[in-house]
């Protein structure tokens, strides 16, 4: 009689499961070290020296950010350009900008933003994605939001909207009043501007490039 085959042996499959799981886990941990280094936040020196970081430092709020097609990578990437005023200043120190970002990130969690909006595409689908909202033409000089809120700059319009969202409805579905203070609104806008500078491998595609081709507009 032939010997029992290893393929029907539970011990063999138990060992296989252990090895496969172990191997996958080790690979994941190794990749995590590499990724963690690549997504650590840059600093002010990086920005001044033109070092490209996937997640730039908080002082990126002192600069103009655009979202442009990179021919080599085949998708759009955030491009950090010349200095740009943010609430009237373009000289935020590392500490000041870091404090603003900290406040904004805390605010984004304390107000449950992610349970209506998506951030980096994750969250709920009841309201627009915020990944590149800083670059949304609706908030720019040509857009409707500045005149609607009676403000002259993008950041002021956004901060005003965040403090009194249900005064400026853009759809039957409105944003509720979440008790956002002026300081928190400023932090949140800094957080949004910073998020738009993160290299998201071209997500979302064609953001803000297409001016309405729906309903014959």
């Amino acid at each position, binding site marked *: 009689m032939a010997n029992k085959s290893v393929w029907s042996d539970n011990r063999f499959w138990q060992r296989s499961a252990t090895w496969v799981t172990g191997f996958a886990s080790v690979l994941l941990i190794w990749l995590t070290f590499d990724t963690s280094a690549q997504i650590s936040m840059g600093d002010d020196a990086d920005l001044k020296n033109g070092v490209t970081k996937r997640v730039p430092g908080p002082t990126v709020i002192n600069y103009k950010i655009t979202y442009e097609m990179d021919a080599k990578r085949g998708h759009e990437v955030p491009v950090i350009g010349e200095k740009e005023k943010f609430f009237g200043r373009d000289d935020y120190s590392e500490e000041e900008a870091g404090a603003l970002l900290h406040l904004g*990130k805390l605010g984004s969690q304390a107000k449950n933003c992610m349970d209506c909006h998506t951030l980096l595409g994750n969250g709920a689908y009841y309201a627009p994605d915020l990944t590149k909202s800083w670059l949304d033409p609706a908030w720019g000089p040509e857009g409707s939001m500045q005149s609607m809120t009676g403000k002259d700059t993008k950041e002021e319009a956004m901060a005003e909207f965040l403090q009194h969202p249900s005064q400026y409805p853009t759809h039957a579905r409105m944003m509720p009043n979440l008790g956002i203070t002026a300081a928190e609104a400023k932090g949140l806008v800094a957080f949004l501007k910073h998020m738009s500078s993160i290299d998201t491998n071209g997500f979302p595609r064609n953001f803000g490039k297409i001016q309405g081709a729906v309903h014959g507009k």
Partner: protein
Amino acid sequence: MANNHLTSESKQLATWYFTFAAIIFGAQLLFGLVAAIQYVMPAFLFELVDFSIARIIHINALVVWMVFAMFGSVYWLLPDETGIETVGIKIGKLLFWVFAAAIVVVVLVYLLVQVGPADETTIWFITEGREYIEAPRWADFGIVVVALGFVGNLFLTGMKGKQTGIVTVLMADMIAFAGLYLAGMFFTDNISVDQYWWWWVIHLWVEATWEVFVGAIAAYGLITMIGAHRKTVEMWLWIEVSMLFGSGILGLGHHYFWIGTPEYWWEIGALFSALEPLPLVAMFIHVLYDWGKTQGSQDAKGEQLSVINNKPAFTWFVLNAFGNFLGAGIWGFFHTLPQVNLYTHGTQFTSAHGHLAFFGAYATILIGMFYLGVQGSNGIKVMKNTKLSIWATSMITGGVVGMTVALTIAGYVQVLVSRAQMGATWAAYFDGQSGLWFVQAMDWRLIMGVVTFLGFVLLATDLLRTGKSAVHER
């Protein structure tokens, strides 16, 4: 659920867990309905219970009732598998009350306090604002303590009693399940780092450890409900573990396409997540094959008898085999490749997948466990479907499938109009939301949600009543 037929304290504790889970399941569906109504009528409860609040409760209740039902399932099967009473059952009972009380407080704070100022006190006491694991930090520590107690009981019992293959898998799986929660407990200003670790919790739960848990429960169910052969069942279980962890752990990469993480995750995520449906096919075949095999041997004896000793539970287990493959496997694969995901990421597509996957992979089998609890509590030898069981099963399944189809159609509109055609801006978003197909899909989702909820009411009634019914063999 009367406990008079249960001599095992572990099984009694399991029925507590099942009962609380069923109540939270009801809350999940109720707040899901609120959110679904708000898509159709945005003014509904505006600035009272906003969509964000309804959704937090909808998805947190989902996670919580499933965790409760999972803990209950383990307490239920431990005496059967190990042959001894669960070690540390007194602590187990105490931790149940601690856990349940904590959950009630967390939900009341979500509902009544809702949001807080942008500082650490909000994170500690109101909400952490991170989808699925919004629970404030004090509750995080409570959950860790409760999970440690649970895992401790499981390990002590497994090491003292007979350590079957199923118990071994559960021991390894549950410690990973509990340990992964730690990855979601810290705050960082860097949202890419934040989401990197957040996915360790969410993905490595639902696409790895929870799936392995389902494999173990399905194995237990096949042995107890149809008398499948342990050797065969456990061999399959080990194969499933290899396939699930082999694909699921690195399948995590499909969440790392667009959150700031490097481009190599495209290839890793695409490859391994594309493999993720394979174990689900294996699990599907496994359940149906074993059923056919045991029924076939029974038929060969010349008797026209079903091998199933719990019809409603087995129905849910078979629905699990289908639902897991369809909801997690097919609906997941739809949008897992980066070329597709670039446009579907963050749309109702994800929502469609989420509904069918959580239902198909987890709700089904856990409802099956509820019926095993009712059977044991009432000393029933062969449990049959009542009219109510059949109505409940059909309405819940039909309702969820209906919602999934509706959300998939809504997702198509969003992908084509908001994303591909208009480039994902604020205006693009609302153009998509206003599309006729999108609006109609949301109407249908609400209708199907109501069907699901009514089905749940029937299910709850059936679970309370069927134990006393005369149709069963005792």
